[in-house]
């Protein structure tokens, strides 16, 4: 065994100058071997390891999921622009990765998302309005994770891979016929927590699928700043399989994720799926991607659009007629309207909500501060009454206008 024989990802580049540039980085845009069942041109292809035989209904269902998800996402961006949301993290371009993997789960499975898994949430029947609460700033999540087996969004990148692993350890203890799928990004792959999750999952043979959406950007940093080899290869060194799938091919993602979940459910332990996709929009609505990436790159990826390719296929095969598309368009509009109206009607929490749910079993200081704050608030009501129109700085209006 020579040194070279143990190297993965080919030999790194020779020569080192004074720079810290990464060697052996893959060239941008070049896709390594990945599982594909539907080409960007909408051609069905076969793969020796993964097969899928979807019914027309299933195909239309996947298409519908992606279209509605994209519409929801677009509406959220608009709502952010209109000031109804403080922020939005768009999934534009990642619909296939999310719908494909989400549809591969079963009700008993449990999902641990990042902050961008709106498509996965859709497949779990989470009300889209629920997803908007944290972006509007009325809560930090707030849906009941147990209801749809869809955990709250996690913002601190990578953390949720450990929660997923722990949950999966629990599933194994319970002998449950279910698995966990834990999402993370290419950027998050660098976090120590993700490596620790791999270690725990492997050592306890936990039924968890790690699903990395490699959308090639972590805000402004390209994936080469995280790894010099494809991320799916990370798994082997922890003792479990990894696979890269075309993340813009909903059929391939569905097939690969289904197999991975089955692998986990059947007692074979964890698996890593890297969905090679692309973040077509900004990181979030506060981001300006023109500062760090080229139009050409975006355009190149536009040609691999996950929705367009399935539509091409559906149309070509005569699986979706005009009526279908018209109905879907109407459904999209209705969804957008429901979301729009719903957000605008979303009530702000009352100020006392700050003191709720800090603890499940109570805490004397929280009680004390709640009471003090209530008294303080009440004192304004009094002074506002008595000092009405006086313009004193202590009225609630002034408190809100000047105090911050």
């Amino acid at each position, binding site marked *: 065994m020579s040194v070279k024989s143990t190297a993965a990802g080919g030999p790194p580049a020779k020569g080192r100058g004074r720079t810290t540039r990464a060697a052996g980085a893959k060239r941008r845009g070049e896709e390594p071997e990945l599982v594909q069942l539907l080409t960007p041109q909408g051609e069905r292809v076969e793969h020796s390891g993964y097969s899928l035989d979807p019914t027309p209904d299933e195909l239309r269902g996947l298409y519908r999921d992606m279209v509605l998800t994209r519409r929801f996402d677009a509406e959220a961006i608009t709502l952010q622009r209109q000031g109804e949301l403080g922020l939005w993290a768009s999934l534009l371009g990642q619909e296939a990765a999310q719908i494909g993997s989400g549809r591969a789960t079963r009700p008993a499975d449990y999902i641990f998302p990042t902050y961008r898994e709106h498509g996965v949430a859709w497949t779990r029947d989470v009300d889209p309005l629920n997803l908007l609460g944290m972006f509007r700033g009325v809560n930090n999540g707030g849906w009941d994770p147990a209801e749809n087996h869809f955990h709250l969004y996690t913002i601190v990148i990578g953390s949720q891979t450990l929660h997923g692993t722990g949950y999966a350890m629990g599933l194994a203890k319970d002998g449950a016929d279910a698995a966990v799928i834990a999402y993370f990004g290419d950027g998050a792959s660098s976090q120590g927590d993700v490596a620790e999750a791999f270690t725990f999952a492997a050592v306890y043979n936990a039924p968890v699928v790690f699903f990395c959406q490699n959308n090639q950007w972590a805000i402004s940093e390209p994936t080469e700043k995280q790894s010099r080899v494809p991320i799916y290869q990370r798994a082997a060194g922890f003792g479990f399989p990894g696979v890269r799938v075309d993340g813009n091919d909903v059929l391939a993602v569905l097939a690969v994720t289904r197999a991975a979940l089955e692998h986990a459910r059947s007692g074979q332990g964890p698996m890593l799926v890297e969905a090679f996709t692309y973040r077509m929009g900004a990181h979030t609505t506060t981001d300006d991607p023109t500062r760090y990436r080229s139009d050409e790159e975006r355009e190149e990826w536009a040609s691999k659009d996950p929705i367009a390719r399935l539509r091409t296929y559906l149309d070509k095969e005569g699986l979706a007629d005009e009526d279908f598309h018209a109905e879907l368009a109407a459904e999209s509009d209705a969804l957008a309207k429901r979301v729009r109206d719903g957000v605008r009607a979303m009530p702000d929490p009352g100020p006392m909500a700050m003191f709720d*749910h800090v603890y499940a079993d109570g805490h004397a200081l929280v009680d004390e501060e709640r009471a003090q704050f209530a008294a303080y608030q009440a004192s304004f009501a009094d002074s506002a009454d008595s000092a009405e129109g006086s313009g004193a700085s202590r009225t609630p209006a002034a408190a809100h206008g000047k105090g911050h």
Partner: protein
Amino acid sequence: MTQTATQATQAARSSGATTSMPIAKALNESLRKALENDPKVLIMGEDVGRLGGVFRITDGLYKDFGEDRVIDTPLAESGIVGTAVGLALRGYRPVVEIQFDGFVFPAYDQIVTQLAKMHARALGKVRMPVVVRIPYGGGIGAVEHHSESPEALFAHVAGLKVVSPSNANDAYWMLQQAIECDDPVIFFEPKRRYWDKGEVAVDAVPTGLHQAVVAQPGTDLTLVAYGPMVKVCLEAAAAAANEGRSLEVVDLRSLSPIDFDTVQASVEKTGRLVVVHEAPVFYGAGAEIAARITERSFYHLEAPVLRVGGFHSPYPPARLEEEYLPGLDRVLDAVDRSLAF
């Protein structure tokens, strides 16, 4: 609702027998009882299995409850707490052991960002009944990272509860209560007192987890301490008694929340307060107690609240720890200074 330690022991005595055992054994018995009572309770940590933990707190549990309940983990503290969060989401009640105080920091993010906030994030829809046991404090002649007192770094964080027993009976009961609590509890164990024996009343009705107790009544000055320093304060009270001074010792027991009512009642009786802990004074628990009690009892204080604790330096090498740790004399020095006001 102030209760003296004597009353507590009497209450215990009235409801059943007591057994003398060291704190380490009381913790071990407490864990055993929790494992027996609730199949959802798990023990997790480094070397907690076959070895029984480096302090033997989990001794025998692996043998009796198996590797499904008593889990030797990979050496990754963030992983231990992070997976405990996931297990709690699945309905388990993990009791996590951090091997030494100085090794909790790799898990700090998971504790502060996830464990502490998950219940609030979910608007109460999930619960995080996770106990993080941390042997803490110095005085055992150890190498770096094995003698620290980081409790303030947890008590500042909303969503966590922080407690520390000072004796065997509290060790037994407070650990039970922490495990039964639906909130995350950081459970600081006074490691240099592990082998100190005390009476444990296993059939008693225990004092509330977050209630302070008057460990020694007195009239001239109040000493507040918790964990390993309670013993030092009781010794100081005894020494002071020889000099004709009556010190009241309050065992705080809980650092988040703090039972300020009990401290306040004591201070309004004695008029003077000295807070003692091993942790550095600067930004330590003593600061919070001094600030709050001064606010509550401003007109009762005959002297400013004084603090005795660690210096603003890393915990020193073992040959210096006697000088570093607050001992009888430093406590009595502060008592003198307070009384001189």
